[in-house]
């Protein structure tokens, strides 16, 4: 049984309400921080904890905070990135659904540490139930004196607002998110200047993921050094993994970083193995953007050592034989899954979500999708495979924001590990045209755990 520090209380009925959360020790960390700590001390603890951004990039959070321009006379902002849109990732939604006050508490502590008096939670537009849940939690926090003017009798004041997106994956990129928050199209900004210097309204801004900010609560509660003992090496702490695809128990799991892939994938505590007792074909371990791992590289690295879930182990072998932890969106493919169709599917996604600002991404994502669509429909030619690889490589690294890389990596890695499937599609157009994909009957998971859902909140919506 792995250690849980974020989801340790989600089983308590009514934990999404202020009262139950408070009765179970909630907001004591915020009290401790505001009453007994200096902002710089909080940042120091976060630095010591070794916490890395949980949104996908894995940048050390404490370092990001220390970049904040404190010499400027402008107000500072903290923005919580709840624009969770990476295919395969649904951990932030789970956290908000089940224990919204943990996020609010994390926001209070973090805002205090950064000297921000206004904080926005940017939630993707589709998450309307979650917007309701957050607004209710914020209202409760105001009513109980944890938000507003002079919190807990201190001189510190904080307002938190929920801002809704409206359907754009790109707004998960921090500068696109800020543009969107300013009421504009979600076009990522050129960097430098970084948001820490010129962010929201040209003021110093920190943008952090939901899970990252929630994790600040246990870090301050137990101390950065103690937190750093959890996990392995530079991958400290726990991570929420959202598991989906062809597995027996899809859902969100909190794991201690360093847990073996073998255990996560096959133990009944987590994914429970492949659905319908099929064989494993591949895993995308960190959300649709990261390279796909074929079955033989899932539980073992190329050096035949055990692969575990940590930033380092998952990227062991570089892109040749490794992948990335990313946002922790764990997508599993069984032996019947079609890699070509899935690659086309993801390419269509990136084509649809490209903002269109810079030319390699705007033109390249559409090109990839069109060629993949042809191959998938039995109209491909052998030279198309190299064309795809070449186009993807020309997008990678040449765009304003990482969406270009995200569109390129799945294509490159699928060709690297599953070239034979592409060749099969091209050689046997008659067969591939008649394959029935992703059929509902075939893939209905027979023993799905019922989803834990906070019925009280959902009904009140």
């Amino acid at each position, binding site marked *: 049984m792995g250690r849980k520090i974020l989801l340790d209380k989600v089983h308590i009925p009514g934990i999404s309400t202020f009262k139950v959360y408070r009765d179970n020790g909630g907001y004591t960390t915020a009290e401790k921080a505001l009453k007994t700590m200096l902002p710089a001390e909080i940042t120091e603890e976060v630095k010591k904890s070794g916490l890395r951004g949980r949104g996908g990039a894995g940048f050390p959070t404490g370092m990001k905070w220390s970049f904040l321009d404190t010499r400027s006379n402008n107000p500072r902002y903290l923005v919580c990135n709840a624009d969770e849109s990476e295919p*395969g990732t649904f951990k932030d939604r789970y956290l908000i659904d089940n224990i919204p006050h943990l996020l609010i508490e994390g926001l209070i502590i973090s805002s205090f540490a950064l000297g921000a008096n206004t904080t926005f939670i940017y939630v993707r537009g*589709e998450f309307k*139930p979650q917007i309701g849940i957050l607004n209710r939690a914020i209202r409760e926090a105001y009513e109980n004196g944890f938000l507003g003017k002079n919190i807990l009798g201190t001189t510190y004041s904080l307002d938190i607002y929920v801002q809704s997106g409206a359907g754009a994956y790109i707004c998960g990129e921090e500068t696109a998110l800020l543009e969107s928050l300013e009421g*504009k199209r*979600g076009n990522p900004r050129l960097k430098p200047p970084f948001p820490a210097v010129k962010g929201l*309204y040209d003021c110093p801004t920190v943008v952090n993921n939901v899970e990252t900010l929630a994790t600040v609560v246990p870090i301050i509660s137990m101390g950065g050094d103690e937190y750093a003992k959890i996990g392995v090496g530079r991958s400290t702490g726990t991570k929420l993994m959202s598991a*989906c695809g*062809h597995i027996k128990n899809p859902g969100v799991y909190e794991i201690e970083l360093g847990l073996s892939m073998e255990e996560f994938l096959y133990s009944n505590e987590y994914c429970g193995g492949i659905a319908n007792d099929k064989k494993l074909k591949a895993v995308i371990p960190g959300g649709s953007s990261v390279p796909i791992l074929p079955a033989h590289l899932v539980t073992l690295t190329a050096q035949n050592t055990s692969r575990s879930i940590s930033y380092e182990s998952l990227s062991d072998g570089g892109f040749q034989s490794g992948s990335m932890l990313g946002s922790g969106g764990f997508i599993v493919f069984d032996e019947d899954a079609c890699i070509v169709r899935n690659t086309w599917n*993801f390419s269509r996604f990136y084509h649809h979500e490209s903002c269109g600002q810079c030319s390699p991404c705007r033109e390249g994502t559409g090109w990839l999708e069109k060629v993949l669509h042809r191959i998938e429909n039995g109209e491909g030619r052998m030279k198309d495979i190299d064309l795809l690889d070449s186009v993807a490589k020309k997008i990678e690294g040449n765009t304003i924001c990482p969406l270009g890389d995200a569109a390129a990596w799945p294509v490159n890695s699928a060709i690297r590990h599953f070239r034979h499937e592409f060749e099969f599609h091209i050689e046997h157009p008659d067969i591939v045209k008649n394959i029935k994909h*992703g059929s509902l009957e075939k893939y209905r998971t027979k023993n799905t755990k019922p989803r834990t859902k906070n019925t009280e909140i959902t009904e009140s919506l």
Partner: protein
Amino acid sequence: MALGYNIDHKLYQPEGKEVRFTDEVLEKVKKIIARYPEGRQKSALLPVLHIAQEELGGHLSVDVMNYVAQLLNIQPIEVYEVATFYTQYYLEKTGKYVIEVCRTGPCAMCGGEDIADYLERKLNIKTDETTADGLFTLRRVECLGACGYAPVMQINTEFYEFLTQEKIDQTIENLRARANEEKPKDSKWVEKFF
């Protein structure tokens, strides 16, 4: 609203009446604008467009967008730019219930494509069309962020998870039965903005 220029666009259908929020909604809009620093009222654009879509006819007509521009004191083109960028703003008339079926990776692998096909047959419409009775619009959308509960769809604000044909039958039947009911006020998403 007097525009002073020639309007000729496939999406333009004059409302034929004055477009305006009720005083109550207007109050809320003002509260939202007050969240942002002086001169940054454009920040309210995304939330206000959501409200406008819900309160003023289910989609964003040109008149509605011009009204929002006027409220926020920005150029109409700034509203058009934003409204066309984000997929949740509907520029054309929609049915009372907008069914959005997820078609991205994990959902597609677990039967999402079947679900959308089934809905097309069941409602006798193609994707992006609205049923003749004006009740349902069917859309296929990209990742809804509920991959572990695949296949999923969203109808207006609600999510429907682990879909099967039977669940869809039941859902559609329920919605049809409730079609004539006035929407209870507190079920409106706008209410949940605060």
